[in-house]
């Protein structure tokens, strides 16, 4: 059962890729990309988790009194979350520009290279 968070991360990634591949709307595709990104968060935190550990925050407990989980991966995930939000914002701005220029947000209709 310790493998369960890794399975969840794999499922998240696969279902996100499925949504990206079969999407008919670029905004929907950006949402599926957010699902893919969340799989990396779950994976990293699962790597750092220790059974019986608690958060490496020492505002309310004394350092060393209880076992803690790995703080390095938590810092990575923190950065990842913020980067994910920024990338989502940028992609949505691009989608707005695509809608303005090509008049559609359907990726199938955007396949021809228009001059």
């Amino acid at each position, binding site marked *: 059962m310790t493998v369960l968070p890794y399975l969840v991360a794999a499922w998240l990634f696969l279902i996100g890729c499925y949504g990206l591949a079969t999407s008919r709307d670029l905004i929907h595709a950006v949402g599926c990309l957010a699902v893919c990104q969340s799989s990396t968060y779950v994976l990293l935190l699962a790597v750092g988790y220790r059974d019986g550990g*608690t*958060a490496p*925050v020492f*505002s*309310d*407990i004394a350092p060393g009194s209880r076992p803690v989980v790995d703080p390095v991966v938590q810092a990575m995930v923190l950065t990842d979350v913020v980067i994910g939000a920024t990338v989502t914002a940028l992609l949505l701005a691009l989608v707005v520009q695509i809608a303005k220029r090509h008049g559609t947000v359907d990726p199938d209709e955007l396949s021809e290279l228009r001059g």
Partner: protein
Amino acid sequence: MNGWLAAATALLVCGVGPAAYGVVTGPVHRRIAAQNLTTTLVSLVLLLLAQGYARPAYVDTALLLAVLGPAGTLVYVRLLAPDVAERPPRPRRLRALTLTNYVAVAAVTLPLCAAAGPGRSLAKLLVIAVLLGLGSHVTARAMTAGPGGPADDETSPDGPAPDGPVTGGRVTGGASTDGPVTGAPADDGRTPGGPVTDGPVDDRRAPGDPVTDGPTYDGQPPGAPLTNGPAAGGPGAGR
């Protein structure tokens, strides 16, 4: 695995589960109300987890959610106001749901306040409870009072001013245009397939249009002296 963690799991499975189902399916007003309920329940779950893991530092996440959850729900109410206006919520159901919110907040916060001693943590818990209750109240009010109609031009139900054969000189009232504009009266009064009331002047005004002082059939405002028409017929015919 103590009682607090068990209560958190139970709330997660039995409370957030059905609320999540309500968020994903159904009409928009139900989704927004379920979204509100979900944020409240998740905030309570976070409080229970904080108590179960014996870490008072975890209460900050519940505080953040109590502040941002209603803000997110109000975003939905504002940006989806036209969709809510199409199918407004039933007041009694909304009131029942809001009451569920209050009951859940009270049922979870009171034992937690009893468990925490008097001091800063108690004050934090009370602040969170008040914020959650206020958030539910504000969201419910926004949903019933909100849909007053489009505030900007881009939220009108049929989008920007329709280009196409609709506006051929007709006084367009906003209520009378609808999706596929195949029944628009033509310039000479013949409507392809629409309700045909012959006589050119009648066709200029659809049933919903107010009889205003807009341009009449021959393009002259009612009070202006007729420069075309009979006068043009004379010299025109004489040429």
